[in-house]
């Protein structure tokens, strides 16, 4: 007897339909799975056998062949357990075939027949929603799956329940999210800028970075609060839209990082990989590609603490995704494209010992050591940082300890407004914020008056600024003007922007 049921697999962040065919014939009792299954798929034999038996059904002592089509792509993971079990039960006529009802089965089986949640449900459903609209899946995946509209979701807790439904013993009821729809979607933050006392200069710089989507590097001695500040950056980034949240959730689902019953990621992610990270962990990789840290930071913040300590080749792989907002990973099994639109925030000590610029003059590094330390970050990567922030040492922070900081909500309101200005200005340019401005667009949108030009000229000669700073100062001035709701860039916008280029300065002749 032959039966066919549908299941789905995932490659990158895209799902595809898999046909699971089960043939049962007389012969020696064998259970074979073909169609490039990996180890976790092959092991499903044991789970399926036990789950069928322990749910009170009969496991045929015959020759069982399971084929998973398309047979030329590699299958991974335990999500096909349920489809195989249903296929076997159908082939042995323990479940009748239902006309006009050919759902997609997703789910891992435990030995007692309970359905366990699987990864990647959201991206799978988003990819197949046009052709299939009945999904049977484990109850724990229901919340996540219900983000996809126009689909009938049938969650079940055990194989037994499912079979009795399919036998017509009880009714199939599509899942409805409790109060659940889009309007319930709300962004939430744990960390708030009001927790940070003082540090006004740093906060202002981060506000500008958030408003213009600028990448920023923070330079400061150890323990000055760089990580604390960076962690709070997502809370002042522009409001997360539903579509953005869906994209983030898709990636997290594919990576298996959704928490139980977390239907939707409702906050901007903050990823802070350790500096020993490998390049494939950073950008994604694996035999069947999985998203890396930069994709997990999609629409959020990628924070590289102590950036000079990262391996050089690891840092260099960041350049292309920073430019394109996505990363394509090619492997023998095919190439997958992951979105990776993130804000890069890096931190570094000012010098190897960390005390350069400290008021106590404790620094013992030679100028050569200092330039070599920050020189570990290549020029092209350094060029991606529009804003340089100097985080003061603790001795300067004590001064303003007792003041209450401004809350993230207030800052975010200003950021939202500035972003709105940018989106409006760039409607015909295919970009959304100032950090994306190319050289040509800078000439077009960052026009400065004579006073501004004079200031730039004087600043470059008197501060020994390097030439590469010019465009970056213009971009940042544009953002400062946007924050002030000013249509034109004024000289004082430029004057402020010049202060965020510390690393281009040569302090002494």
């Amino acid at each position: 007897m032959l039966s066919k049921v549908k299941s789905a697999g995932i490659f990158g962040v895209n799902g595809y339909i898999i046909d699971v065919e089960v043939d049962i014939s007389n012969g020696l009792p064998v259970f074979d799975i073909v169609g490039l299954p990996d180890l976790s798929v092959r092991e499903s034999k044991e789970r399926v056998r036990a789950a069928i038996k322990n749910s009170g059904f009969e496991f045929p002592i015959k020759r069982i062949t399971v084929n998973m089509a398309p047979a030329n792509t590699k299958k991974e993971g335990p999500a096909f357990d349920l489809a195989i079990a249903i296929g076997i039960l159908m082939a042995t006529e323990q479940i009748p075939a239902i006309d006009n009802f050919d759902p997609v089965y997703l789910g891992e089986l435990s030995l007692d027949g309970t359905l366990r949640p699987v990864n990647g449900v959201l991206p799978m459903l988003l990819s197949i929603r046009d052709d299939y609209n009945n999904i049977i899946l484990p109850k724990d995946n229901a919340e996540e799956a219900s983000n996809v509209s126009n689909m009938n979701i049938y969650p079940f807790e055990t194989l037994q329940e499912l079979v009795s439904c399919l036998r017509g013993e009880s009714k199939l009821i599509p899942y409805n999210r409790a109060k659940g729809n889009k309007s319930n979607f709300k962004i939430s933050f744990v960390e708030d800028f009001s927790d940070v006392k003082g540090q006004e200069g740093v906060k202002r710089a981060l506000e500008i970075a958030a408003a213009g989507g600028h990448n920023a590097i923070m330079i400061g001695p150890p323990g000055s609060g760089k990580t604390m500040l960076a962690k709070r950056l997502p809370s002042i980034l522009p409001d997360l839209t539903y579509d953005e949240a869906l994209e983030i959730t898709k990636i997290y689902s594919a990576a298996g990082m959704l928490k139980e019953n977390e239907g939707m990621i409702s906050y901007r992610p903050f990823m802070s990989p350790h500096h020993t990270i490998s390049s494939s962990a950073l950008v994604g990789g694996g035999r069947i590609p999985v998203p890396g840290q930069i994709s997990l930071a999609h629409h959020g913040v990628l924070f590289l603490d102590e950036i000079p300590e990262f391996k050089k080749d690891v840092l260099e792989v960041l350049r292309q995704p920073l430019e394109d907002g996505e990363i394509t990973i090619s492997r023998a099994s095919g190439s997958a494209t992951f979105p990776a639109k993130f804000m890069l925030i890096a931190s570094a000590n000012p010098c190897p010992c960390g005390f350069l610029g400290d008021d106590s003059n404790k620094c013992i590094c030679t100028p050569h050591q200092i330039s070599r330390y920050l020189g570990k970050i290549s020029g092209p990567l350094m060029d991606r940082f529009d804003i340089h922030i100097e985080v003061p040492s603790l001795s300067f922070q004590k001064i303003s300890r007792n003041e209450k900081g401004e809350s993230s909500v207030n800052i975010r309101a200003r950021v939202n407004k500035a972003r709105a200005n940018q989106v409006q200005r760039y409607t015909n340019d295919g970009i959304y914020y100032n950090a994306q401005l190319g050289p040509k667009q800078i000439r077009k949108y960052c026009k400065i008056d004579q006073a501004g030009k004079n200031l730039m000229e004087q600043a470059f000669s008197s501060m020994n600024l390097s030439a590469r700073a010019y465009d970056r100062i213009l971009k940042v001035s544009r953002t400062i003007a946007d924050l002030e709701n000013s249509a034109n860039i004024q000289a004082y916008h430029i004057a402020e922007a010049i202060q965020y280029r510390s690393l281009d300065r040569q302090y002494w002749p």
Partner: protein
Amino acid sequence: MEQVDEKFFWVWLSGIPGIGARKFHALTKYFGGAHKVWQAPKEKLTQLSPYLGSNVVYEIINQRDNKTLDGISRMLNSSSFRIITLLDDEYPDLLKQIYDPPPVLYGKGCPIINHKPAISIVGSRRPTGYGRQMAEKLAYELAEAGVTIVSGLARGVDAMAHYGALKAKGTTVGVLGCGIDRVYPPENKKLFSSMEEKGTIITEYPPGSAPVAGNFPARNRIISGMTSGVLVIEAGERSGALITVDFALEQGRDVYALPGNINVAQSAGTNKILKEGAKLVTEVQDILEELGIQKKKLKKDTASVQLDFFETQVYNALQEGERHLEELSKETKMDINKLNAVLTMLEVKGIVKQMPGKIFIRNWDA
């Protein structure tokens, strides 16, 4: 002709490894000239082994060949540097008076002007912002008053002193601890090239010599020896600048020092020598009066720079010295964005200087 020949052999003898100024002078005195050393019989030189060391004698004997001669004539004809011996007019007069004047100097840049008064400025290689500013300021004002500024072309105070003198379009001499063809420390490359153009660089070490640690204390005796006084800007407790002070005292030269904050490590050395009797310098006049120079009235008019209300506020807040951005914001009650803009304006106008770590200080010439 005799004179030229003698210069030739001076260069030869002084370039032999292991022969310093003292051994050079002892040998020429013993044999009656460097040329005589070249001609001296082997046995006679070998007899000197207990005094010179057998290695040195071996080198003298071994380097008496044509190949060495070629090398020396190439050096004498070199276009990138010149050789100044103790016998030449350009040789600094004051330096001749010390106990062990270097017989040969290799020089680059402008000729040394002997009749001008000279002061050496030395100090820490890691000075504070205050130290850097004072080094530049005092060098500028001394050079402006016609004093030659001598220093060691090192990091920190040395570099700032040279820059100050160059800024005033004055004369300045840098003394190296390595060969004339070397740039050490490498980050002073820019300074080296402007010194070659508008100042003078000299060294007693033959071309190709590496900047080994032992060279620098010996170099310091030339710095103090060339000048009538040594001004110490900032020095740690065991700073090389204090070695220069020791040489100055040995050579009978004046010692000046700039007082510093007693809590700062870089002031430990200067405050110590002040206690021991160095002349305290708070303004350039303190040095000029020792040199017998009448200071010209300052014609600088600061009124040419116009400051607006906010700029004046920030300028006033910097009255007591360096301030961090956060401190300034608190003191002036200005928002950070406004303050940042104002600080850039002040920097551009040359009134305020920014130091690493968002610390601001008034410019000395503001």
